[in-house]
């Protein structure tokens, strides 16, 4: 993948990580390395300076690495973490909810110009990604090259959904911001995309049918929960052996309860990072649920998750004057 900006960003990032490890500012850094295929990346814990060479930063770094802070943050080590702007939101939520201490974190924000979705890339170019040997970029397009041909597709067609609605506020919580030029392509990324609106026109039975159809496919593999930075309970109620409130069987009504419960639990914590939907092996449109709930929380309490560490979540407080919708 040829993109000068990303190559330069990677170099600066490597230098930064090297320096942090060298000066013992952090015990280790969570970043990205190359995955099993050319278009894949994977999370990478960098402990030694000899490992820094493997660090990458490119348009396929989709993971929200903050989710790794959930199990390890209690150990008291000082952790460096590579974060996109959107990942900062979930870090803010983790700090706010006492899952990690800010003083134990060193946040390296890296400029991000949108993450590519390889499935979309395949769909729009009609070329299986395994055949692709090179992708070049110009202002609005990606030039996808195979050994025989080359084809241009619109960048905006191939970005992750969340990147299309990314709203570009630079967080003040990062310790470092690695950028070269400011992110360009604002026009590509400041879109609005409908997540749940079409379902609002359907009657109740239609909506129930829609969700039951999707939830009937759910395997209860819990990948959505495990990847979610907002699901930080030490023992999830769906794993708990005491008080088995819902069956672990993957039956449709139980799955319905699972999903609505999880959506409710994460209602004031979800930062709309889209990881749950991305990892779901059976493509359940979980973001419809999350986006809708985020909108309702904003509507009812004027609250948005992930913005400020010192804000109180609406479920942890109340007003005597709250409107009573049950009158």
């Amino acid at each position, binding site marked *: 993948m040829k993109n000068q900006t990303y190559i330069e960003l990677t170099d600066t990032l490597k230098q930064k990580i090297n320096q942090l490890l060298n000066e013992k500012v952090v015990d280790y850094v969570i970043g990205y390395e190359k995955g099993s295929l050319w278009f894949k990346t994977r999370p990478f814990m960098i402990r030694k300076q000899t490992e820094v060479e493997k660090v990458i930063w490119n348009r396929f770094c989709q993971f929200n690495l903050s989710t790794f802070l959930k199990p390890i943050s209690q150990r008291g080590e000082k952790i460096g973490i590579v974060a996109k702007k959107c990942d900062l939101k979930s870090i803010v939520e983790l700090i706010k909810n006492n899952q990690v201490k800010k003083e134990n974190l060193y946040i390296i924000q890296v400029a991000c110009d949108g993450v590519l979705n390889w499935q979309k890339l395949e769909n729009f170019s009609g070329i299986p990604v395994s055949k692709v040997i090179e992708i070049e970029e110009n202002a609005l397009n990606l030039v996808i090259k195979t050994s025989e041909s080359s084809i241009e597709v619109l960048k905006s067609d191939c970005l992750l959904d969340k990147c299309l609605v990314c709203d570009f506020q630079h967080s003040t919580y990062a310790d470092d911001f690695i950028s070269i030029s400011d992110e360009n392509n604002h026009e590509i990324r400041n879109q609005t995309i409908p997540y749940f609106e079409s379902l609002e026109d359907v009657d109740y*039975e239609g909506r129930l049918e829609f969700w039951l159809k999707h939830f009937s496919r759910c395997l209860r593999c819990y990948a959505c929960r495990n990847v979610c930075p907002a699901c930080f309970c030490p023992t999830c109620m769906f794993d708990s052996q005491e008080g088995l409130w819902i*069956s672990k069987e993957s039956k449709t009504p139980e799955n319905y309860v699972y999903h609505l419960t999880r959506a409710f639990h994460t209602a004031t914590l979800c930062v709309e990072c889209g990881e749950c939907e991305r990892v779901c092996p059976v493509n359940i449109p979980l973001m419809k649920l999350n986006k809708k*709930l985020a909108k309702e929380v904003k509507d009812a309490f004027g609250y948005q998750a992930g913005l400020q560490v010192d804000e109180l979540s609406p479920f942890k407080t109340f007003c005597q004057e709250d409107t009573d919708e049950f009158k």
Partner: protein
Amino acid sequence: MEIVAFCCQWCSYAGADLAGTSRLKYPANIRIIKIPCSSRINPTFILKALSKGVDGVMVAGCHPGDCHYSNGNYFTRRRLTVLKRLIEFCGINPERLQLYWISAAEGGKFAESVKDIISRLEKIQDKPFPKNSGSSL
């Protein structure tokens, strides 16, 4: 018609008692579950009841300001506001979830509330969850 009523032990449950000892008539469709405070309601209780095919769930607690634990019911009100919108989006008529404030002295209001939820449910057309389609648990 089947309705599950979660009643706070300090007020609405006592209100239900009073309705009984005062021999007030109310529809016999409800199954009362005693809870320590309306804020003891875990949203999963409600979701589970609805997914088992009950027609409606009523939650009853002390009047705002009167909660035995000072402010549990204010939290309940916030949570159920969101839960109501969530079930509505996921295909359950929001009328199926009702929240009432009933004190221990309001036997009459308890009976009225049961009548109220029944009359609301009689008006709605869409079906609840199919009964007994899930696991036995």
